[in-house]
């Protein structure tokens, strides 16, 4: 048998899951004692080039409240053509099409290597993808120009039959009609007025005439045309839209001195959501919101237009000084929920030097599976490439995105599902496998994930409900089945089914086995997600305290210091941004976020990972730090001096040139693949940007621990934060005292 390490890796590769425990304690009591719950990180659309989808529909258990999918773990009676559901033990006959089934002629879903299998179902007409651009026009000329170019470029990336729409906003909100010739036509909404979806649809002329009490008009033909006016196939309006984007002007309303431009983001989104709701409910669609500043008027406003009142900070929020926070958050939440219900996701591309209100708007993306991208300007490669990467394609030439998926979890009797943490919303489907104990988004066995990509990962939390006095029969296995229905980017509807089984173990007798089955990384990330989830919904310090009580592990030091839990030094927007990504990235990325990776490059050997510690900062090294959001190349003092002196230009110092180049190449590799593209920083000792590095390393040497002074090892960090050493000491003391 392979090591757990291999087993875990294998499982992740095949099913996209990583469990915190790979042996499950067989009773509730034992499970509770383990502190870290039975839970997993699940990547529904894990890319499986080796997994061709099957062209038929799954076979379901006939029990009405089960409907589990036939899987390799089921017992099958080939002679009677009957299979037993391994969740409810219902015995089901195979459908007629399975008449030819036999032990040597098994369908794919019964083969063990197909514990994860994808079905293509032919239901209803294929619906095109929909991309609705919502563009802020209160931008600097330069930014707007860059944005326009990016948008125009994106048109060429869309599949020709995809529908596109354009909404621009500033003081007013304009919905552009794309089907018209001659005069460019747009519908305008006042940026200060909250409109119901019905009103919006009426105003856009999308409601059926019957609604307005008019008689005698033929409703049918108009309807189709009406919905099409604002959302048109790319191939048809390509030219029009390119021109339209080209003619986009900055918001023409004058901005008096001392004021912010009036930006009606709230209404713009409301219109976008309303428009899609009315025309393409339950169809995959992306609302792509591009903003260059905070919403300053109308519903969802985050800050007033007076420049003298700055946008809220954590300080304000803690002091309850953020006037608009609650209202705006509530507004965007409501909208996110509406959007999620209809399966439309919302991306936010916020490029501004100051905050743009992501704190309030984050739920738009968090609940709908949309992206959030934060940058300084639309005129940066960070934005441009990230945006381009949204439309990246897989080996089949399909977009790496899926829409409107519904993920359902089924568990065997001993388990119940507590909740999920990730870009999803609850569908409030209360089944027998739903636990009353909620963790994350709970109380349901079905979640809607409006937009998925191959790396989207949800944290799933379970509860062992088996009572101590009802031991699991020997050799019994707990089973979990994930059924994910989604709209593939090629407009097919697909269902992916992953069925996972783990052995039960008696915690009393097999505690070592259980211990060894512990997946430290997965557990760390899962617990971190729980922490973040709590941090989002609770007060920060409480979460830290909770975390401290729950965990004693190395990485937790960094987690405590990470922007996911700490808000110090981060704006509310940044915190939101980081958390957003944390709860959706897969394990590897998540780990990087929690504990950045530090590589050291020197003449003394090949690049090596080093401790994320101030002691690693040495003058003759080049450091490459990857925090997921930032990629920092730090040249040590000596290296920097050499570089300044231009040695790399000299032929005899070719090796130095190569040394300089090495981290750049590595960085480039990371930049190529990561979404969103990280902030790339090339700095050196004493450079202002070196702060990115200094803030991350463990402050083992500070201005406070004098003994470190003067030593040639590392650089002191000017901080009052405790170092890992202190933290550990403290932790040990606590652990002992608490146990006592």
């Amino acid at each position, binding site marked *: 048998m392979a090591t757990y390490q291999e087993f875990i890796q294998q499982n992740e590769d095949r099913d996209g899951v990583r469990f915190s425990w790979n042996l499950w304690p067989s009773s509730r009591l034992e499970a509770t004692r383990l502190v870290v719950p039975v839970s997993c990180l699940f990547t529904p659309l894990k890319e499986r080039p080796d997994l061709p989808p099957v062209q038929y529909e799954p076979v379901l258990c006939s029990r009405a409240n089960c409907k589990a999918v036939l899987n390799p773990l089921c017992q099958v009676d080939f002679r009677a053509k009957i299979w037993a559901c391994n969740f409810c033990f219902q015995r089901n006959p195979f459908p007629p099409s399975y008449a030819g089934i036999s032990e040597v002629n098994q369908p794919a879903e019964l083969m063990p290597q197909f514990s994860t299998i994808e079905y293509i179902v032919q239901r209803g007409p294929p619906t095109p993808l929909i991309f609705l651009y919502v563009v802020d026009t209160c931008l600097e000329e330069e930014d707007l120009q860059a944005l326009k170019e990016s948008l125009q470029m994106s048109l060429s990336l869309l599949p020709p039959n995809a529908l596109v729409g354009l909404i621009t906003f500033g003081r*007013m909100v*304009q919905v552009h*009609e794309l089907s018209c010739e*001659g*005069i*460019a*036509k*747009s*519908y*305008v*909404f*006042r940026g200060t*007025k909250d*409109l119901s979806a019905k*009103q919006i649809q*009426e*105003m*856009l*002329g999308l409601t059926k005439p019957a609604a*307005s009490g*008019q008689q005698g*008009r033929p409703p049918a033909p108009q309807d189709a045309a009406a919905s099409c006016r604002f959302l048109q196939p790319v191939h048809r309006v390509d030219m029009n839209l390119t021109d339209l984007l080209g*003619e986009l002007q900055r918001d*023409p*309303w*004058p901005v008096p001195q001392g004021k912010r431009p009036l930006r009606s983001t709230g209404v713009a989104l409301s219109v976008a959501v309303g428009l899609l709701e009315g025309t393409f409910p339950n169809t995959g669609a992306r609302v792509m919101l591009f903003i260059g500043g905070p919403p300053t008027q109308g519903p969802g406003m985050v800050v007033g237009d007076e420049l003298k009142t700055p946008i809220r900070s954590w300080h304000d929020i803690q002091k309850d000084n953020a006037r608009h926070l609650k209202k705006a958050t509530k507004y965007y939440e409501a909208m996110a929920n509406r959007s999620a219900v209809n399966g439309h996701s919302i991306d936010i591309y916020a490029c501004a030097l100051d905050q743009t209100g992501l704190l309030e708007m984050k739920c738009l993306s968090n609940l709908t599976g949309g992206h959030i991208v934060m940058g300084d300007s639309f005129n940066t490669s960070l934005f441009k490439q990230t945006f381009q990467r949204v439309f990246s394609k897989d080996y089949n030439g399909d977009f790496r995105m899926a829409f409107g998926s519904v993920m359902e979890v089924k568990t065997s009797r001993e388990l119940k599902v507590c909740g999920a943490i990730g870009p999803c919303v609850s569908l409030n489907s209360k089944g027998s496998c739903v636990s009353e104990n909620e963790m994350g988004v709970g109380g349901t066995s079905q979640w809607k994930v409006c937009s998925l990509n191959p790396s989207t990962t949800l944290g799933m939390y379970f509860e062992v409900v088996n009572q101590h006095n009802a031991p699991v029969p020997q050799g019994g296995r707990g089973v979990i089945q994930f059924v994910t229905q989604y709209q593939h980017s090629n407009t097919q509807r697909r269902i992916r089914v992953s069925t996972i089984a783990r052995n039960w173990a008696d915690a009393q007798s097999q505690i070592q086995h259980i211990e060894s089955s512990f997946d430290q990384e997965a557990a760390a990330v899962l617990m971190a997600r729980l922490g973040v989830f709590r941090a989002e919904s609770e007060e920060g310090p409480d979460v830290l305290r909770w975390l401290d009580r729950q965990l004693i592990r190395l990485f937790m030091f960094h987690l405590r210091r990470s922007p996911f839990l700490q808000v110090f030094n981060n704006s509310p927007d940044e915190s939101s941004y980081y958390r957003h990504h944390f709860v959706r990235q897969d394990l590897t990325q998540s780990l990087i976020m929690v504990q950045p990776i530090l590589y050291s490059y020197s003449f003394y050997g090949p690049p090596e990972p080093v401790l994320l510690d101030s002691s690693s900062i040495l003058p003759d090294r080049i450091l490459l730090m990857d925090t997921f959001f930032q990629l920092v190349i730090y040249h040590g003092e000596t290296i920097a001096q050499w570089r300044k002196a231009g040695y790399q230009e000299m032929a005899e110092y070719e090796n130095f040139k190569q040394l300089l180049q090495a981290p750049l190449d590595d960085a480039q590799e990371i930049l190529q693949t990561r979404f969103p593209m990280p902030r790339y920083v090339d700095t050196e000792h004493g450079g202002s940007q070196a702060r990115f590095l200094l803030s991350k390393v463990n402050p083992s040497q500070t201005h406070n621990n004098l003994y470190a002074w003067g030593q040639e090892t590392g650089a002191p960090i000017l901080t009052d934060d405790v170092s890992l050493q202190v933290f550990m000491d403290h932790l040990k003391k606590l652990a002992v005292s608490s146990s006592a």
Partner: protein
Amino acid sequence: MNVNQPTPMASPYGQPQPGYGQPGYAPLDGGYPAPYAPYNGPASAYQPGAPPQGYSPFTSFPSKAVAANPVSDLSSPLDLGPARGPPVSGAPPVSAPQPYNQYSHSRGDMQNGPPLMTQAPPRPAVPQSYNQGAVNLSGGHPSYSQHYGPPPSMQQVTNQMTGMQITSGPPTPAGPGYAPPHSSQPPASTAYSAAPPPSYTQAPPPASSAPTQPPPPSGPAASQQYYGGPPPPSQQPFNSSLPPTSQQQFTSSAPPPPASQQTFPPASQQTFPPASQQTFPPASQQTFPPSSYSGPVPPPSQAPAPPVSQPQQPFPPAQPPFSSAPPPVSQPAFVSGPPPPAQGSFPPRAPPPSSQPGSFPPPTSISSGQYPGPMPPHQQPPPSQPPPYLSGPPPSGVQMPPTSMAQSNHLPPGPQGPPGPPGPLQQPQSQPGMQGGYPPQQNGAFGQVRGPQPGYAGPYPGQPNYGAPAPAPAPAPPAQKRLDPDAIPSPIQVIEDDKAKSNEPFTTGVRGQAPPLVTTNFQVKDQGNASPRFIRCTAYNMPCTADMAKQSQVPLAAVIKPLATLPPDESPPYLVDHGESGPIRCNRCKAYMCPYMQFIEGGRRFQCGFCSCVTEVPPHYFQHLDHTGKRVDCYDRPELSLGSYEFLATVDYCKNNKLPQPPAFIFLIDVSYNAVKSGMVNIVCQELKTLLDYLPRENPEMDSVVRVGFVTYNKVLHFYNVKSSLAQPQMLVVSDVSDMFVPLLDGFLVNVNESRLVIESLLDQIPEMFADTRETETVFGPVIQAGLEALKAADCAGKLFVFHTSLPIAEAPGKLKNREDKKLIGTDKEKSLFQPQVGFYNTLAKECVAQGCCVDLFLFPNQYVDVATLGVVPVSTGGSVYKYTYFQAQADKERFLNDLRRDVQKLVGFDAVMRVRTSTGIRATDFFGSFFMSNTTDVELAGLDCDKAITVEFKHDDKLSEETGALMQCAVLYTSCSGQRRLRVHNMAVNCCSQLADLYRNCETDTIINFFSKYAFRGVLSNPTKAVRDTLVNQCAQILACYRKNCASPSSAGQLILPECMKLLPVYLNCVLKSDVLLPGADVSLDDRAYLRQLISCMDVSESHVFFYPRLLPLTKLESGSLPMAVRDSEERLSKGGVYLLETGLHLFLWVGANVQQELLLNIFGTPSFSQIEPSMTNLPVLDNPFSQRLREIIDSFRAQRSRYMKLMVVKQEDRTELIFRHFLVEDKSASGGASYVDFLCHMHKEIRQLLS
């Protein structure tokens, strides 16, 4: 004669006002003896009223007014008869005159009062003589006959008249003619001086007395009033020239005159009496004349015959009488002329005019008649008919009718006489008028004034005109069966008379001087008071006390048209810049510097003419005074020497203390199904492409600074970005109509030249874009809100042009429901139909006004659209509503486009505030028009264009002094179309009087009607229509009763006596009462009523005049340079063989008689057949013949005169469309139950009598 006349003339003219004042009176006494005499004459003439008895013809009259008149006449005449008798025989001229004068002075009536006494006798006399006509009356007539004796002088006049007519021929002479008339009358001295009263009472004396008597003065005065300046001169000439020219005639005629006069008197008398009586009954005064005529009784013999047949018979008899009797009659007429003088200085004038008019009419008629007359000088006597005419004239008040009467009468004569046709009638009249006519006038001094004028005009110049009308009269005769329509005051006569005497520029320097009528073409010279084009008052002599005002019930109001367009020969108000500190104003009442400010202390301070407060003169404005206390630079500064001028306003006068931005025009076009289908959208868009080059500008050299914007809408609004940098316009749809806003700023309002290409592209595309629309619902409130918001966003004032088709039933603010319910008509709830359905628009209007957003609404309804509600905003913002019901591109395009062009191009001011300041004693209390008021003094107008008039009512709050008169200053602060902030100031001073007679002598009926109509049309908002009508009738009855009681010479209650200046009040009032608003016919929609109601509320006097009393022109003969003389709005005046043009200011009809001559048809339509005329044509075919050319010229000129384009409608007699046409024949009974003129007059008389008793 000449001498006398001249002098008097001069004096009156020179000092018209003063003279009028009291001085005039004094003079009158001295110099006016003659006038008095005339008055007597009139009296006597009136007596003719009595004559009616004698007049068989009168009988007919009586029939109409009979009840009242006859009896009263009888009684009074009888009494009078005796009284006058003496005067006549005695020093009639002198003594009699004096008394007359007094009476006359007092006011026609007032004076008459006494005179009446004297006159009364005459009347009796007349009556006696007239007995024929009105037997009863005749009683008095006998004495008149004597008077008639005097008439001879009149005869001379008549002769002259006749001569004049002959020689002078038509119109042109009119001017001179008029003068002459006066002079002639004077010459008649007999006529004038004596002529009038003297002649009558002292028929013989007249001649002598006439000369001696300065009647001329009266004449002059009269002339002044009527003719304004001209008359005098003419008179002079007359005297001199007359003698010559007229003399020629005179001479020729002169001889006959005497004879004729003698004869005439009778004839005229006879006829007159009857006419007068009849008519008089209405205007008792006039009746007097008749009586006086009757006095002439001599004619009686003749008269008898005439009376009966009046018109026709008169003729024959007339002829005979002519020789003898007729003259008298004419004399009476003259007398009437004189009466004016009697009125006192003022009265005199008025009277003179009236008398003149009276006389004129006669003349005119005479002219025509004269022809006949001339033919047979003696025949003129037929004028005996004139008598009828005269009688007509006599009614002074009624005089007009007399003329018409005359016409009718003439007709007969016409036939007889060579002039036969039109001329005859008038001629006869005029002649009679001259003779008898005048007298009547005198009696009726009041009414006569006008009558005479027309008469005069007629005789001299007018004759020709009359001649034309003559034919029409023919039908009249039948009317005589009841009250002869010709015997009652004729608007046409009054108008023509006024035209005839107004051939010199009207100078505004004289306080209290009534301007020529609105129907008259005249030039104005600003000498310190605002031109009548800017301000017209109901009374130019305000009562000094509130009691008087209350007693008279004459409304004190002014119709102000602050931005009126002036004819090219009058310079627009000068622009004055007082520098940074702004216009100089009184410290206390804030009145602006004006000619009424009195500089004192060597020019260092000035005393306000309004509040008497003394204010320091700012150093930069200081100027020394000359020896008269006037500033040396008085004539260099418009604000010190003119009635109207403008100040450049400083920033203090601007909103938010910021100089205004140039205004903007926003076009909001309905593109719903109906709008597209009717072709409206297409037409508007096409037109705008060219129209945008004609946006208003002050300097024609420069481009207009007005910016434009475009919006289309149905249930939602579409704004357009037409920024010059765009290749294509952009459409911005706003569907959120519940909370309107403007979706864009930059690019919405643009300069036409800069964005021309984009705009043209837009206008090309709009019709295409909506060609297939199926949207039928529209909104309205949000449309205006959109425009308003756009202006707000641009921070400027401006005008919205809304093109709208249907009731706004789409869900939006200001949504309306169809509430058309004809069942409510006539109930107490009827008023609700005029009220807006929802309050939304009132609030919106208020906001619009605050922003200076004026709304012009073009409606194209196919059904009820609730104009009452939709019109609220336009009406409150100084905008206009245009309505094209059942709009069809082909038929209505021209009208719509012309309206649109004019509306877009006309000069307009924005964001205006009007304030009327008055001198202590009166106060502006009420305002009528298209505007908004947020307090009681400031009239706020978001927009004010050159066609909008505001009627202001004044009330006393203290006593006024005769010395200082009453001053008013109307200041309008506005933003010009070039974006300049300005103040336009109009000053007006009127006299004050302590005698009611003065008030009645200086009224303007047209203005009064304008006020009454606006007052009533506002009244229907809060009262049942019937109550409003009753109120109107009551007030008018009170006005007339007050006159009768306090100003008219005592006479039988049965006589209807109308003040000369108000003799048309009944007919016009009837028109108001019959209007669609107050008395709707079954086919009049609620929208039409609401539309008219709103329309009238901002009309000026000339528009309201033609609206209520349409102009009806016979087209049988057209001459270049002059219009055919109008005929009265009655079916009786239409000849089956004729073609008529009727103009109401809103409509234009071409009525074609069934028996029209082929040649006429060929000339007009190019077809020889009546049946081939295409009734749907809206324009006449362009034919290359003089007649067609001239006709089209006339139509074009009519259209040019009015602020709205009149669509031509061809009405064939007995065609279905004739019903519509008939609606505008306002003297007839209307289909909706409106009374005919005659009936209403009787009704009015009854009301008055009730009040008196």
